[in-house]
């Protein structure tokens, strides 16, 4: 099962990943619509990425009262049914990694779908530092380096 991995130490904070994600999924350039986000504060001197970690027993799915979220057992990705999502943000609150994006504009949750229809995830292709990589979940040795 393939998965997007991030390395904050290599992240320059540019948000090209978020824009690429938004372009693929919405056709709109706007880093706020990316399922991968770069949390950054130049004043406090940090930047790191947040993206779905594909929990085996995901809290977000358990917390969703609208039955809008489901885990695809085959790919491990979390599927958001936007017709069902009511924007209650329970998933946002329970995600231990802050990896669910609450889009006020859409009134819907945005969760990384691992770009399962694409050969390469858009964020990985857009990253210029190697701070985002895609690998099989069982085969992650060396990624952290």
């Amino acid at each position, binding site marked *: 099962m393939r998965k997007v991995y991030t390395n904050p130490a290599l992240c320059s904070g*540019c948000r090209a990943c978020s*824009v690429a994600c938004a372009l693929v999924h*919405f056709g709109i*350039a706007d*880093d*706020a619509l990316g399922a991968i986000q770069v949390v950054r504060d130049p*004043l406090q*001197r940090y930047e790191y990425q947040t993206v779905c970690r594909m929990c085996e027993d995901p809290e977000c799915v358990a917390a969703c009262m609208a039955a809008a979220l489901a885990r695809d057992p085959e790919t491990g990705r979390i599927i958001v049914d936007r017709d069902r999502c009511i924007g209650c943000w329970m998933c946002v609150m329970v995600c231990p990694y802050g990896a669910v994006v609450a889009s006020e504009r859409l009134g819907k949750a945005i969760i990384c779908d691992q770009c399962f229809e694409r050969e390469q995830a858009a964020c990985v292709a857009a990253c*210029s530092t190697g701070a985002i990589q895609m690998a099989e979940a069982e085969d992650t040795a060396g990624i952290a380096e």
Partner: protein
Amino acid sequence: MQDAIGNMRSRLAEIDLTAGTVHYEDTPPAVVREFLGGRGLNVAYLHRLLPAGVDALSPENVLIIGAGALTGTGCPNSSRFNITTKSPESNILGDANCGGFFGPKLRYSGIDRLIIRGRARQPVLLRLGDGRVEILDARAYWGLDVNDTQAAMRRDFGPTCESICIGPAGEVLVRFACVMTGVKNAAARGGMGAVMGSKRVKAIVATGGVGLEIADPDGLLALNEQIKDYLLDSSIVKVLGRVGTPLLYEVSNHLGTIRTRNSQDSSFVSTLDAEVIHEHVTKMISCHSCVVHCRHRNIHQGEGPEYTTIGLLGANLGIGDTEEVIRLNDLVNRLGLDVSSTGGILSWAMELYQRGIIDASLTGEPLQFGDYELVVRLIHSVARREGFGDVLAESSHAAARLNDPERKYLIAIKGLPQSDPHDCRYIKAFALGIATASRGADHLRSRPTLEVFNLPKDLLREIYGTDIDDDPTSYNTKEIVVATHESIYAVIDSVGICKFICHGFNSPKLLKYEHFSQLLERAFRASFSVADLQAVAHRIIDLERAFLNREGIRRPDDTLPWRYFEEPLPNGVAKGHRIDRAKFQEMLSRYYRLRRWDADGVVPQERVRELLAAWDDGSGA
């Protein structure tokens, strides 16, 4: 005409602070077609809206903030926006280009350009989001430095907002106050912060909510990736990403052209070399969508230093201690002062003191090069207009008070102190470029440094379209060199991409007109051929010049600091070089002929009418 620009949005909000009103409209497609965006559209509006002779710090001045055509699209290094107004420092065109994250957020807020007029009765901030602008009370933020202001914006408008703001220097109208975003990105030159302060706008905060519709998202992403990979393979991009702009310090120092102690010397210590600076760096970070990552997060305070800071606050003030220069860099950023003018004006005063032209009765204390504590005190006093700082805060306007009415010892052109730490007595094209640049002594309009790379003749012919004299000390054909660089830089500033990944600035191999053309096609289905883009550049350069002409600029203003003509460079490879007045004048005449301006450097009226015709193209505002 709409077809020609595809779905490129060019939405503007015109804010009248005196009346407290906001008016929205789209820039007519015919005008977008001719001036593109960013710097180009900004000057088109400035020329249209501002009559000649207006006091730059009066409510009648117009402050224009505009994103580039590709800003925020996610294509490599597309972070940039321009602030354009009449400069209170030079009294001519004020135009400053800035990176960071505000430009994209401005567009994601549904607005591509702000036109700010009038003056608020009390401090305000402008909040942009969901396609609207709100004018809010900012009294609670007045007095805060740049970092504290932005921390307050994040607290009050959420951690994903992006803001630009002025520091204390802008509030008290220091003529070289800048507009800042983040801890070091600055719309630095020409006193943009003083104009913002004169309008009593403390900050502009963008919160997004709209985004930017892209015509061919998959096509754009594929092209972005291809360009990114191409750029990452470039040696100049690699080295900029590793050590940033300080690498240029060694180049200038080696040549004997690093401005030192107000250009009395031209070589300085190696403690400001890039590798030494790098020992003070914890991480290289970037602006929005950037593939270079040339920004240093240092171990002391803030970000930087850049080459300009090392030069102007280091060598130029005789300060060689690495940490001291880094701390001075952060100090001017927090207070919202332009690094270049701060260094240029302080060094001017120091030399005047050294020569006995001014004394402690004016300055309050001895002024000596190399005195870090003195420089810290002076910077604080300038930013608050206290004591002698109030005199220095006038920038080049302080000439009479400083007893140097002809500005003989000021390294400035058209009232704007020179930004590049590079002494222009050696590379003659560089000298012509800063003498004719539309905002005063400025290297970013034409920086013609490809010459020193010793490129093969056939490559030079390809770049310049004709044979050029590749000796940097020759005056021959340098008008062609300057005009070629000026043109592509005008387009770069109008699409909103960083010069570090573009042709001509540091390398002949990076992004060219063809790339911008492809990116505009993928992003908006906008159809701009290479010839179209070159015509856009030509219009921008002519209209900027027409603006200058209207403010009274003529041939005698296209000159260089006295020292560049009269004193030979003292050190290094460049030792003995200076600018020959007669040869400079011949070079200037050739440049005017190439630009089709008259012998006095004036754009023909017929051409000016042609430049303004797009407004009357049936869709005019």
